[in-house]
């Protein structure tokens, strides 16, 4: 259990409390996840539930101060009881994704210690996280018997691109469950699933690099837990740091590929995918942002990669893909389209090379950046005049390409040397 992160006075407080119904982690950035906001959000969310519950709030405010305990009126069974504790500030040099993963571990450990029935994790910036989010993530667990409630956000067509291009369709093809955001970061979990993850995530069983962020949805899918999605509305996105895009890719895709490797025995037998129940009403998106996307810069990066990274890609991709990429790099901006099949096979080949450690994993994942930018450029050019419905059907086609090419992945995964087209 990762309770070491919690200061001693707060640990003693958890011991004193003994048990609770809910654990809620408000893990947005330290400035916004202050204890006052967290407690207000929780109080409002619990007021909407049919029964009064005891909840422990863990927030990521980094103050490291002794917990402020909301007074519990003795004998008052009608109002909810809320306790809180805070996480210490992140270690220097800790990446945001790693920080969230560690914070998840602590929340799960607190939940496991208190024997909770449900757990809610809010890792988006808490300015955007409405009180409704906690309710929408917890209520399906408590009232409808779901084990995992994954988030479904209202997005513009150029938002959530890594999710649209890789994470969601890859999760669907591998584990047979179509989720908009398999890596959350906002989740609702049942106590049963939380206990299962705690067992699977014990330091003895998990590798040093394995991220909890990537293993929640796959654990639920592989172990037969009930999964649904909940409409949460608009999520405020962090501005893109283009200079560190390769670090983001390395971190997120590295976690997804590691998870894929750990669960290979399970996903190889799955074919097709199913749509999951989506609860709540989707929010109407605000008008499209008129700022045009800089496709030129992305295509320049793609061409530079195609010109200079052939030696590196040659160790990862089969000759047919390399040939196709070389052909694409000679097209004009308007003609440029990255075919779905090629993109899907690139992702599958990178996942395989990650498993085989063909080259250093960090080099491998970072060398994907120009290809990812090429995909974004192709998608932006194709969808520049499209509405959200057309975008959804386009992503549906991409998901189908992932599923159709799964036999290619399975063959290469089983016989990497023999099956090399």
């Amino acid at each position, binding site marked *: 259990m990762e309770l070491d992160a919690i200061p001693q006075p707060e640990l003693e407080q958890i011991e004193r409390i003994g048990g609770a119904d809910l654990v809620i982690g408000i893990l947005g950035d330290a400035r916004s996840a202050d204890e006052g906001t967290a407690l207000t959000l929780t109080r409002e969310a619990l007021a909407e539930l049919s029964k009064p519950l005891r909840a422990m709030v863990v927030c990521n405010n980094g103050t490291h101060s002794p917990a402020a305990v909301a007074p519990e009126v003795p004998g008052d069974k009608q109002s909810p009881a809320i306790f809180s504790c805070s996480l210490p500030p992140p270690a220097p040099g800790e990446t945001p994704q790693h920080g969230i993963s560690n914070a998840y571990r602590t929340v799960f450990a607190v939940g496991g210690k208190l024997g909770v029935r449900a757990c809610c994790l809010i890792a988006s910036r808490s300015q955007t996280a409405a009180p409704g989010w906690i309710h929408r993530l917890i209520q399906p667990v408590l009232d409808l018997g779901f084990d995992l409630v994954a988030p479904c956000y209202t997005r513009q067509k150029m938002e959530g691109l890594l999710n649209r291009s890789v994470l969601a369709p890859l999760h669907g093809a591998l584990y047979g469950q179509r989720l908009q955001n398999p890596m959350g970061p906002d989740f609702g979990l049942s106590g049963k699933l939380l206990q299962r993850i705690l067992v699977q995530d014990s330091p003895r069983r998990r590798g040093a690099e394995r991220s909890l962020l990537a293993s929640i949805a796959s654990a639920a899918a592989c172990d037969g837990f009930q999964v649904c999605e909940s409409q949460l509305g608009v999520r405020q996105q962090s501005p893109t740091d283009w200079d560190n895009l390769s670090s983001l890719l390395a971190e*997120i895709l590295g976690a997804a590929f590691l998870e894929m490797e750990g669960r290979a025995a399970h996903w190889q037998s799955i074919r097709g995918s199913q749509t999951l129940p989506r609860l709540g009403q989707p929010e109407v998106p605000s008008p499209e942002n008129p700022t045009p996307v800089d496709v030129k810069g992305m295509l320049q990066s793609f061409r530079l990669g195609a010109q200079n990274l052939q030696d590196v890609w040659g160790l990862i991709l089969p000759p047919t893909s390399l040939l196709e990429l070389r052909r694409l790099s000679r097209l004009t901006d308007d003609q440029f389209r990255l075919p779905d099949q090629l993109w899907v096979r690139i992702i599958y080949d990178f996942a395989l090379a990650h498993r085989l450690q063909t080259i250093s994993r960090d080099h491998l994942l970072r060398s994907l950046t120009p290809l990812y930018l090429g995909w974004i450029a192709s998608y932006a050019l194709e969808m520049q005049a499209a509405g959200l419905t057309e975008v959804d059907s386009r992503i549906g086609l991409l998901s189908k390409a992932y599923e159709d090419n799964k036999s290619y992945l399975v063959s290469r995964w089983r016989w990497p040397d023999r099956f090399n087209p």
Partner: protein
Amino acid sequence: MWDQVGQALRLSMTKMLSQLASLLPGIVALLTALVISVAFAWALAAILRRSLKRFDFDRRVAHWGFPAMAEWSPASSPTLLLTRAIAWIIVFMGFLIGISAFDGALPSQFVIRLFAYLPDLMTAIVVFVAGSIVARFLARSVLIGAVNMNLQYARLLSVGVKWLVTVLAVTIALERLGIGGGIIRLAFGILFGGIVLALALAVGLGSKELVSRSLERETSKASGSNVKEPVGHL
């Protein structure tokens, strides 16, 4: 007089034959050592070749970042190169053992000096191999990083770093072997300086693009701070 000439010839013949006879055991020992070492080298090379083929050594060498090794290997196979190199080293060792069997001060001194040189040779080989591995790793890091930063001089930077580390490793190895002395140091200084200058130019020219791009980004941020970034990844 003819008797004396005949006696002198007989004496010299006897002397030469006895000297030849004294050399014979050494020659036989040398030939035996050579035959044994060749047989041992052949057997070891066969075992090693089979093991390396099972290990898929040729492909792995290319994956470890030494694709060029296949080019200067016999039949484009690093496995063959390695096994042949080891076989010839064993034959050479056998030859040295055979030479030392001669009863003479010169061969023994030669062998002793050669064996004393071996640790330096091994150190030089290790330094060279480690230097090559580090050079390739750093070159790949720089290449990928520079491409991701959109630098047009990515390849030049990467090649520069690779040669910088390789030249350093070769110089240390040669210094260890005691070859070249002052000339090597001088050549290293010139080469190293040249590469650093080339890299500085490349970085300078590349940074120009980088700085202008980041300035453009800052300006666009400042002029439209209320405009939301159109692209999000997660």
